[in-house]
């Protein structure tokens, strides 16, 4: 026997097809609204048509006469149903202002879409008709829409707070006091830029849907919700409703995407639960698409002021950042924390001294609340530093890739302790960037550009790039504590080998499109030496998976996946004691490979895991003190964030007559460490890049001065379709994470982070010969054309 024969066939790293897809593609998958719950009442929510108004009166008498309408509640009617206002889990500063926020508005509405009344009816048609029959008298107030207007406190939204400012959060890191100011004084080159991160609507394929089912006796209640966070939801709804936590079970059935928008505790979840208990009947609510654009959180919404100081070689000597963050009308679950997630990344992938001055002031507006949206703070930060690097390169009249090369943290500097005190565990930025440059044919594109971009040409070629670092794998609990986050960042896993050697994995992650069932089965299969199809993955039901912190922030693999690997190790350790007992040897004499324990040096003395699993089940012959069954549970708190990185490049052609931008080539080189399933990694990169391109070119939640959403449906809010985005070429470098045994880092948000600055910098590059130096997002044809007109008219009208 040779060692190679005994080598396990590797499952990790193969392009296994997703087991989730057949039910999703055939319509077999059950989403919340597919659940057939007999006797469920339908909830509709009447929403404010005003961004800011006093509620003078609500007359429901006509609506109550509609056949099928059972009851209508106003905010006042339900005031006693809540043990506390809706939760915000991230009080970022001790003095943060947080207005009381209830599921239905009381006396005053603060954004278009704010809930005013809840209608319960026996059917959806009756509850929809009742919406039109309720007569609400409002006294409109001046709406605060603009961030800088909000900052001025000319009109205060929540008068009880006395200000529109929710908090100011500074992060000043100086080697010596005043060194930032000093660096700017001494700098050979300085840039000062202002960027606007437009509000985005997450627009998951499946809008939200909820059914709350009370048990007839005893007070137990099951909440089915299209959510990313069944575990957090269980705790938070129990607390808000004042129900004992053990009486609440939360189930997330098949969930059609979230992108952060389902990382929240929503008014409708609380309304369904409260009303189902009041009426002792199941209550269902299904969001309409236009409703989704107003009643579900939005993303981004920041004004960024970024300054870089650099020496004569372009080496960055200091970074100064001022942000105004748009919280919207209320603080949702993690609203105030989003800018903080970016606060550590305004130095990007660059080696900067301890000369970093960051401050974020967040304000209320009369708009839909914001919260985490794919990337959450990190795309914003990356956009700012990468666009500022482009500006610095222009100021120095050097190629921006050359400038980046002079500033990249070098491979040999890892693990790298950053200015912030955080340790970047691994990386090789130059390698990823050079690979991207090669795949793009950088030299070829530059040569073509010289030929094509001649005076008078109307089709101009541009090349853009960005290098990013992502801080993900949320998160080491102690670091979260230092940021005032109210929960931890660990993840739980249970691994159970059944008597027939089939495996159950129970995870606290809650997939909504990421393919966890496939990937987690691959991890357990690799560790235990069984086939992936013999591993069942259970999740998203708090009655089955009691412990967990759910799915967001590219955490599921580097935290939840690693927890599974650790639980497999524990199972193997236990099995080893049983194997040693039965083979009559010491545990240290045993090796485990390919699903079999064998005595080192005498491979004939061997026991397969299958035999041990059955033996552990019968418990006929176990070592003294050994419990029956093969099962282990782990709660894993990661020692560090994970740090994926990469470089994206793209080539665009801009039609200067119309302003149209066409992306000719898009290259994404991402390093997420080891890849469990490269097919899933590529899928995540493709989806992420498209969402980043969407921010760069297409999407914007547009409000008028009265706070009305003008882009409130999919004809006006331009989510790109497959035919509107380029083919994406993916490439990878692999720098395993040294902080976890799988060497993994997470890939859920990387594409979104890399794409927007890549596309915008390419457009500016194309138009640089015309004097264009800035480009607002989204770079719609009209915006591009007007920017060209402004640049070429030489300041004249």
């Amino acid at each position: 026997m040779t060692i190679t024969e005994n080598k396990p066939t590797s499952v990790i790293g193969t392009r296994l097809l997703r087991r989730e897809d057949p039910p999703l593609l055939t319509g077999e998958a059950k989403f919340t609204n597919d659940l057939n719950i007999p006797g469920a009442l339908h909830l509709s929510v009447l929403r404010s048509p005003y961004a800011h108004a006093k509620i003078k009166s609500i007359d429901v008498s006509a609506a109550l006469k509609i056949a099928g309408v059972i009851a209508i509640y106003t905010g006042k009617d339900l005031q006693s149903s809540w043990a506390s206002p809706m939760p915000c889990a991230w009080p970022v500063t001790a003095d943060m202002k947080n207005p009381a926020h209830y599921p239905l508005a009381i006396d005053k509405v603060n954004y278009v879409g704010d809930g005013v009344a809840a209608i319960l009816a026996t059917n959806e048609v009756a509850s929809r008709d009742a919406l039109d029959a309720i007569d609400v008298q409002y006294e409109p107030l001046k709406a605060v829409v603009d961030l800088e207007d909000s900052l001025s406190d000319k009109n205060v939204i929540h008068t009880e707070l006395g200000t529109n400012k929710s908090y100011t959060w500074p992060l000043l890191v100086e080697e010596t006091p005043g060194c930032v100011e000093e660096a700017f004084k001494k700098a050979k080159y300085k840039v000062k830029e202002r960027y606007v991160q437009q509000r985005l609507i997450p627009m998951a394929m499946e809008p939200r849907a909820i059914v709350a089912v009370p048990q007839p006796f005893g007070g137990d209640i099951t909440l089915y919700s299209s959510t990313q966070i069944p575990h957090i939801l269980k705790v938070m709804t129990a607390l808000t409703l004042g129900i004992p936590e053990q009486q609440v079970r939360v189930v997330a059935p098949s969930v059609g995407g979230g992108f952060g928008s389902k990382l929240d505790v929503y008014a409708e979840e609380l309304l369904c639960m409260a009303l189902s208990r009041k009426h002792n009947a199941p209550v269902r609510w299904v969001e309409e698409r236009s409703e989704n654009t107003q009643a579900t959180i939005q993303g981004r919404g920041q004004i960024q002021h970024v300054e870089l100081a650099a020496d004569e070689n372009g080496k960055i000597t200091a970074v100064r950042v001022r942000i105004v963050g748009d919280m919207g009308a209320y603080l949702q679950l993690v609203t105030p924390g989003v800018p903080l997630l970016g606060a550590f990344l305004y130095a990007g992938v660059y080696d900067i001294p301890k000369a970093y001055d960051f401050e974020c002031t967040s304000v209320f507006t009369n708009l839909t609340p914001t919260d985490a949206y794919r990337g959450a703070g990190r795309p914003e930060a990356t956009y700012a530093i990468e666009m500022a690097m482009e500006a610095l390169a222009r100021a120095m009249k050097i190629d921006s890739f050359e400038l980046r090369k002079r500033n990249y943290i070098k491979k040999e500097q890892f693990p790298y302790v950053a200015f912030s005190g955080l340790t970047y565990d691994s990386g090789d930025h130059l390698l990823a960037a050079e690979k991207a440059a090669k795949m793009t044919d950088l030299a070829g594109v530059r040569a073509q550009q010289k030929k094509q971009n001649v005076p008078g040409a109307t089709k101009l070629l541009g090349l853009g790039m960005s290098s990013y670092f992502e801080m993900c794998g949320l998160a080491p609990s102690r670091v979260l504590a230092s940021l005032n986050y109210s929960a931890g960042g660990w993840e739980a896993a249970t691994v159970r080998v059944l008597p027939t050697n089939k495996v159950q994995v129970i995870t606290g992650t809650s997939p909504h499109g990421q393919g966890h069932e496939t990937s987690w089965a691959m991890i357990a299969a690799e560790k235990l030496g069984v086939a992936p199809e013999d591993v069942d993955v259970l999740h998203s039901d708090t009655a089955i998976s009691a412990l967990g912190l759910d799915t967001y922030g590219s955490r599921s693999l580097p935290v939840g996946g690693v927890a599974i690997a650790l639980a497999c190790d524990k199972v193997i350790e236990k099995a080893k004691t049983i194997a040693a007992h039965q083979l009559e040897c010491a545990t240290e004499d045993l090796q485990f490979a390919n699903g079999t324990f064998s005595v080192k040096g005498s491979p004939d003395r061997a026991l397969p895991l299958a035999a041990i699993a059955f033996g552990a089940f019968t418990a006929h012959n176990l070592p003294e003190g050994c419990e029956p069954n093969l099962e282990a549970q782990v709660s894993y708190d990661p020692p560090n964030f994970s740090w994926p990185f990469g470089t994206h490049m793209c080539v665009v052609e801009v039609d200067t007559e119309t302003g149209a931008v066409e992306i000719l080539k898009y290259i994404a080189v991402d390093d997420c460490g080891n890849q469990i399933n490269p097919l899933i990694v590529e899928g995540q990169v493709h989806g992420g890049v498209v969402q980043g391109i969407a921010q760069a070119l297409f999407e914007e939640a547009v409000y008028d001065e009265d706070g009305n959403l003008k882009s409130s449906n999919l004809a006006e809010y331009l989510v790109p379709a497959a035919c509107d985005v380029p083919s994406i070429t993916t490439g990878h470098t692999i720098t395993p994470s040294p902080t976890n045994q799988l060497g993994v880092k997470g890939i859920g948000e990387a594409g979104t982070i890399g794409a927007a600055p890549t596309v915008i910098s390419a457009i500016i590059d194309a138009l640089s010969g015309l004097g264009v130096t800035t480009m607002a997002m989204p770079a719609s044809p009209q915006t591009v054309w007007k920017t060209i007109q402004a640049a070429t008219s030489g300041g004249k009208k």
Partner: protein
Amino acid sequence: MIPAAFEYKRATSAAEAISLVSQYGSDAKFLAGGHSLLPLMKLRLAQPAMLIDIGRVKDLSYIKDAGSHLAIGALTRHMDVETSKVVHEHAPLLAKAASHVGDSQVRHRGTIGGSIAHADPASDLPATTLALGATYIVQGPKGQREIAASNFYKGFLESDLAADEMLVEIRVPKMQGAGWSFQKFNRRAQDWAIVGVAAWHRKGEAGVALVNMGSTPILATSVANAIAKGASISDAAALASNEADPQSDLNASSDYRKHLASVLVRRALEAASK
């Protein structure tokens, strides 16, 4: 997305449909492919009390070579117009425009008559048939009448159709080998045009109509007249917006639309004269 309550009747012939609509008057709406009407109803922006479904009216789905022109039944699906050999041979501009309507699912369901009767200035087919000098045959209780496309469009979603009339046929003059081009400018492939141009050009003669450049589809007569008088294409294209009065919306201001129209008309005429 639940419409207000409505009654529903299905007509099996044009005569029956007209008799029904005479009965119910302006509370009634014809339902053909439903791709414009149903979304408006689901948003409760349209609340007709009666829907008269003409989707199963026989004999109104056809494309015939009628000598000097093509005769196209009002209930012909976009996909049939797009792929018809006869249309490709004699009115290729119309086939091209039909291929730009929505996506493939929409084109299998939506009808040419529905699109024209809806009179949406942002739709591709009203402007294209206008550029081609088409006429429309409408039928009412007193029989049929023929309306020139240039007299048909009266205002935003308003046409010369009386409440008790139904569009039954579109007559498109054969293009006789004229050069042509359809330019559709939008941000996503499946959207309505921000600005669209349907144009043909033949030896000092041209027809140009604009999509989404006013409250109706716009016939750019100044451009055609300039070409007839021997103006260069770019000089003629500069007159693109003479007859237009475009709206401003999220995608384009009125001025930007006018600018786009002149660029697209120039490109269309250049392509058509190649």
